[in-house]
């Protein structure tokens, strides 16, 4: 009974997985429009579960946040929040909102820089414009990593420098005069072209913990984007228009989701809770498909073998004996290696190796049934072989089917997990086995143990155990209901 409840619960989770967690289980991405390069990942690697904050009092842990709202500049109000600063005064600089010039034909920032031929060059031949946008960072601890992004377009009618525009992304805390430049962002536009350039990057992987240097506590911060226009042709006019769009900083939290995040793949760590939910699906599919098909094959073979007897029986049973002798996991390893690691191959192999035991049970039962008087009379009444099997023998052995169905499921689930663990799983599928395989690939179990990242290892392991046990319990219960002899003994 308990088994049935647990199975039903898992069934609901399996069906409702996309509703319970709308995230993508394998390659989750941050929603939103980010042209050029890859879509940013959804979460930082190895973030802890979000309830650590409330339950364990780790309030300082940051969550995911977007520093800038409406980075597509669809609304004029958003533009008004941008502040402008120039390196020198005396030049004709206008900044305005362009409602149709953006990358999606929506809004963008338009900066026009003009210098008359008679005017002096800006110092060093470079004119710097700083666009700043203030935001509130509410967490004491620094974010796990930062994703920054911008799109720029240059309409250069007069400047002929090889590197007409450089762009730098930096952050400034409160009113501090010094801003922290995120490394390696200065990016000269190599061509003079009327085309959008989009650039993005993560701070992670740079030298030193940049996030900790930038974010030293909660407070007001400014996301800055510095445009450096090269204007070094003396005696000629300068008339440059720079369009800026999609300026964004995504601050990845150290806490994410109900069960934290994995570190695999690094380009888009997975939300472990979502993976756990989808794993229910996969395990159910593997377990039930394997159980149903292998029991069906076992039933067919057992019926034919037991009723028809003779050479057919001999051939089928010798083949079954042979397969029974072969060791399970090694044969699985070999077959999956030879056939390939797709989930369908794994299920196919599990079916191929799962039918023998049941066919033997069915056969022995059929052997005793076929000698009974009611079969005899059916035959005497002129019933054909198929009719006798279908109408008289099948109903009598069918009780066994339910029991074997229930007991075949856990084996399949555990086999899939074991195969995945050995590196023979289908890594394109969010199964519990793959979750555990991912963890073993990080070598953390050997280096640090399970304590720190328990939320990655314990849930799938417990899920496998609970689901397997639920099916075994159901098998036991069915056995007791359908085998009166067992009930008597208790």
């Amino acid at each position: 009974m308990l088994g049935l409840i647990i199975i039903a619960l898992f069934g609901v989770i399996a069906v409702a997985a996309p509703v319970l967690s709308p995230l993508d289980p394998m390659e989750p991405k941050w929603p939103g429009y980010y042209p050029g390069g890859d879509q940013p990942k959804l979460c930082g690697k190895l973030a802890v579960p979000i309830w650590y904050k409330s339950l364990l009092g780790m309030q300082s842990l940051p969550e995911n946040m977007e520093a800038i709202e409406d980075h597509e500049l669809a609304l004029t109000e958003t533009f008004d929040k941008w502040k402008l600063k120039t390196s020198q005064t005396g030049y004709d600089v206008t900044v305005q909102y362009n409602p149709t010039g953006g990358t999606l034909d929506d809004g963008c920032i338009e900066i026009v820089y003009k210098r008359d031929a008679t005017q002096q060059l800006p110092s060093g031949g470079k004119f710097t414009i700083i666009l700043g946008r203030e935001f509130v960072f509410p967490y004491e601890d620094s974010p796990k990593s930062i994703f920054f992004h911008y799109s720029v377009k240059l309409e250069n009618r007069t400047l002929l420098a090889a590197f007409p525009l450089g762009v730098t992304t930096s952050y400034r805390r409160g009113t501090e005069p010094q801003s922290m430049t995120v490394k390696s962002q200065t990016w000269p536009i190599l061509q003079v072209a009327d085309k959008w350039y989009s650039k993005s990057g993560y701070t992670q992987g740079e030298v030193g913990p940049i996030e900790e240097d930038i974010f030293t506590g909660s407070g007001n911060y400014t996301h800055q984007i510095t445009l450096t226009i090269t204007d070094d042709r003396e005696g000629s006019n300068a008339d440059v228009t720079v369009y800026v769009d999609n300026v964004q900083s995504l601050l990845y939290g150290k806490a994410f989701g109900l069960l934290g995040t994995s570190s695999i793949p690094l380009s888009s760590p997975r939300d472990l809770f979502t993976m756990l939910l989808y794993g229910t699906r996969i395990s159910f599919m593997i377990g039930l498909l394997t159980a149903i098909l292998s029991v069906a094959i076992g039933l067919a073979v057992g019926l034919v073998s037991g009723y028809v007897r003779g050479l057919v029986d001999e051939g089928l049973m010798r083949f079954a004996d042979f397969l029974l002798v072969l060791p399970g996991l090694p044969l699985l390893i070999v077959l999956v290696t030879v056939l390939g690691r797709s989930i369908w191959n794994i299920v196919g192999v599990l079916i191929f190796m799962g039918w023998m035991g049941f066919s033997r049970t069915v056969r022995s039962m059929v052997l005793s049934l076929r000698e009974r008087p009611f079969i005899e009379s059916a035959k005497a009444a002129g019933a054909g072989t198929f009719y006798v099997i279908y109408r008289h023998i099948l109903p009598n052995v069918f009780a066994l089917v339910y029991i074997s169905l229930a007991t075949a499921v856990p084996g399949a689930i555990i086999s899939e997990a074991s195969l995945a663990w050995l590196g023979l799983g289908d890594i394109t599928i969010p199964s519990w086995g793959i979750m555990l395989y991912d963890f073993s690939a990080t070598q953390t179990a050997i280096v640090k143990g399970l304590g720190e990242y328990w939320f990655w290892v314990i849930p799938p392991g417990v899920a496998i155990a609970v689901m397997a046990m639920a099916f075994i319990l159901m098998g036991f219960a069915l056995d007791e209901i359908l085998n009166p002899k067992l009930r008597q003994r208790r």
Partner: protein
Amino acid sequence: MGLKSYIAKRIVYMLILIFLVASANFILFNLMPNNTLEKFVLQSTGKMTADKLAELRAIFGLDRPLHERYVAYVGNMLTWNFGFSFETRNYVQNDIARVLPNTLLLMGVAVTAAMLVGILLGVVAAYKRGGALDTALVTTSLATYSVPVFWIGWLLLSIFAVQLRWFEVGGLEPLSWATNPPTSIIQYVAGRLYMIVLPTVALFIFIFGGWILLSRATVLETITEDYVTTARAKGLPERTVLLKHVLKNASLPLITSAALTFGFLISGAIITETVFSYGGMGLLVWNAIATGDVPVMQAFFFVIALLVIVANFIADLLYGVIDPRIKYG
């Protein structure tokens, strides 16, 4: 039919099975759609010297027609001639001879302990059937039976090796042996035993639940027999009834089961070894999977199947010898 002809028949049956396994191996590695063996030999052209490659091709007879290859292949399998590993470039048979005893040691220790503890607890559970202890034992067995063995291994590793540092994280020999190797046989044995503790415990936990359930079931089968009631009725102490009358009769199906669970045991051992980097057959095949080392994999499968076949053979013989009621046939 007498005992002798029974044994003879079993031996013939075993030889047929071994031959069939070698043939299955040939089919798997030579006739499957993407012709794994040939592909890997071709792939490794750059990896080893020309004459080693030629030797490999000759061993598997890749240049000859299919039927000749089949004969050569089965011949090679039966004569323990598995070719070179693509990775280590050792003879595979030497590698296997080196690691097989380690696996057998691990399995032997674990299965002995599991049988002793499992059968004993199974008898207790059956005797107190329906009670709290029985329920607890059955639940524990089901739980350990349902958990993947590598997960059990991780828990043990995490608690006893990483946190408490009672044991080393893995390997066949203690790390200190790299600098000062053992000087006496006692030191050697002690060191090896020290390293085998955690993998054995993991494997033990994985299999002992099955033994509890099995012995509980078989004991329950016999405990309701009439002669047990008779034994009780004539005033024998419970202990004597349980051990002499019940367990002795229940032990027959247990012996057959021992052979049948051998495949299960091997599967558990393979995975346990990879968790603890214990240098046995499991670790060998794990590395072979990672590198696509086909000669190692086919030899591994053949040797493991051979072990299972031999185990079944021994169980059949024991059964025939122990149970006088059995009709050899």
